[in-house]
């Protein structure tokens, strides 16, 4: 059995920020990351970030990954990084089990920060299992991390920010985007992203859905169809599109399996992408000593994931008794940063969701004494 003070599950923007902050205040931190590299989904984000300077506005995601990694390595004495390590389970006694390069490891931390992120939702339609139907994020990984084109002609299903951004990045990689469709009557993502791809001549069809994919062993085409105001397909409006790739970009959902397993109180909050844990303002869940940060706490953007990471790292280190002179001030600053990131129409939805799961948790129990 290995021992650590704070285990951070996930080395993406939230996990790295949590680890940096906790290590800065003196805590011994172990970061567990299933990939061989750190940075999570930042590694494929070639676009520049919004927000303010504190969240690296106008810096590209790929560069933010390098910045966070080098910050973490400044605290080498306090930090252990397990790469290529997948957490398998989180048990009642607070033991994490890990598979790392074909070895089985048991780790007993005093505190755990779960920053596992999210996974891409799927959509049901005939032939939706054909190879060539990929998550939009998957295509982003293939192109921007490995330099491989997914195919020649793409249908993008979903006009949220990921759908719009990945459409633009497909064109940057030299791939033809035939159309972006969305079942909703209006574009879900920022109009600045939508305008960019419209200017390049890509149609964005709202109130359209995919009726079916065609092909035997892989995608050879798709049929899309218009929806009426009750979201029902209008027959006779079908259009066949000649594509070899269909990207699904219909949202993300929190990757919360470990929280379920340890018995955190969970609630279904559509505004946050699915089931998320109840938490207090320190980002501690209903299980004592288990903190959350980033998309697993509710789907948002990497900017807020980084701030949440810092908040969870700060509070976890504080709860271990590390002396943080300006703790209340630091905490307030982070909470204010989150508030300002959540200002505006998109933030309103998130705030509505958060209101339902953020509360003072009394009589917490868990494995921590």
């Amino acid at each position, binding site marked *: 059995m290995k021992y650590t003070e704070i285990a951070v599950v996930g080395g993406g923007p939230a996990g790295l920020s949590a680890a940096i902050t906790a290590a800065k205040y003196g805590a011994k931190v172990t970061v567990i990351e*299933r*990939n*061989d590299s750190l940075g999570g*989904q930042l590694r494929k984000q*070639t676009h520049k970030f919004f927000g303010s300077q504190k969240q690296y506005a106008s810096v*590209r995601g*790929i560069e933010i990954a390098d910045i966070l990694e080098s910050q973490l390595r400044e605290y080498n004495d306090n930090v252990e990084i397990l790469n290529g390590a*997948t957490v398998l389970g989180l048990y009642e006694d607070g033991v994490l089990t890990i598979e790392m390069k074909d070895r089985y490891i048991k780790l007993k931390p005093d505190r755990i920060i779960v920053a596992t992120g999210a*996974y*891409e939702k*799927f959509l049901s339609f005939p032939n939706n*299992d*054909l*190879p*060539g*139907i*990929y*998550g939009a*994020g*998957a*295509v982003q*990984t*293939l*192109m*921007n*991390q*490995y*330099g*491989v*084109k*997914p*195919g020649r002609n793409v249908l993008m299903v979903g006009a949220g920010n990921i759908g719009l951004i990945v459409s633009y990045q497909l064109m*940057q*990689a*030299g791939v033809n985007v035939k159309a972006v469709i969305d079942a909703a009557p209006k574009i879900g993502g920022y109009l600045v992203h939508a305008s960019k791809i419209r200017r390049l001549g890509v149609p964005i069809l709202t109130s359209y859905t995919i009726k079916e994919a065609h092909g*035997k*062993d*892989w995608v050879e085409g798709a049929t899309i169809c218009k929806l009426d105001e009750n979201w029902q397909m209008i027959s006779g409006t079908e259009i066949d599109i000649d594509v070899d790739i269909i990207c699904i970009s219909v949202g993300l959902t929190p*990757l919360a399996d470990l929280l379920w397993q340890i018995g955190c109180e969970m609630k279904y909050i559509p505004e946050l992408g699915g089931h998320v844990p109840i938490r207090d303002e320190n980002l501690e869940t209903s299980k004592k000593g288990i903190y959350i940060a980033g998309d697993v706490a509710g789907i948002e953007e990497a900017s807020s994931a980084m701030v949440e990471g810092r908040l969870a790292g700060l509070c976890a280190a504080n709860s271990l008794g590390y002396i943080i002179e300006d703790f209340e001030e630091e905490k307030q600053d982070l909470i204010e940063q989150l508030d300002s990131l959540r200002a505006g129409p998109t933030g309103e939805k998130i705030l509505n969701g958060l209101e339902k799961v953020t509360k003072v948790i009394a009589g917490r129990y868990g494995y921590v004494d």
Partner: protein
Amino acid sequence: MRIDNHPILDFKRGKEIRFIYDGKEMVGYEGDTIASALHAAGVRVLGYHHKTGRARGFYCAIGNCSSCLMTVNGKPNVRVCVEELKEGMVVETQRGKGELK
């Protein structure tokens, strides 16, 4: 299909890595996963569903969904989207649930 020109990214291909895919010799590059090397070579079908026999490719590319399971060096159910490509690997299309030998 590799990306040759990109306005933001500069892909420095590492050294060539040779591997065997269903008995054929193939080439990828250092830094590839098995899935990225296969996809670049035009291989999309990675396995067949154990009940329906329908073709399977990857879906998430980050190790979540288990749609990309293949047999690698005799070991079944390897998520090839997150498995680093190594010299001399023997990669096979998986049919069925796979067997540990």
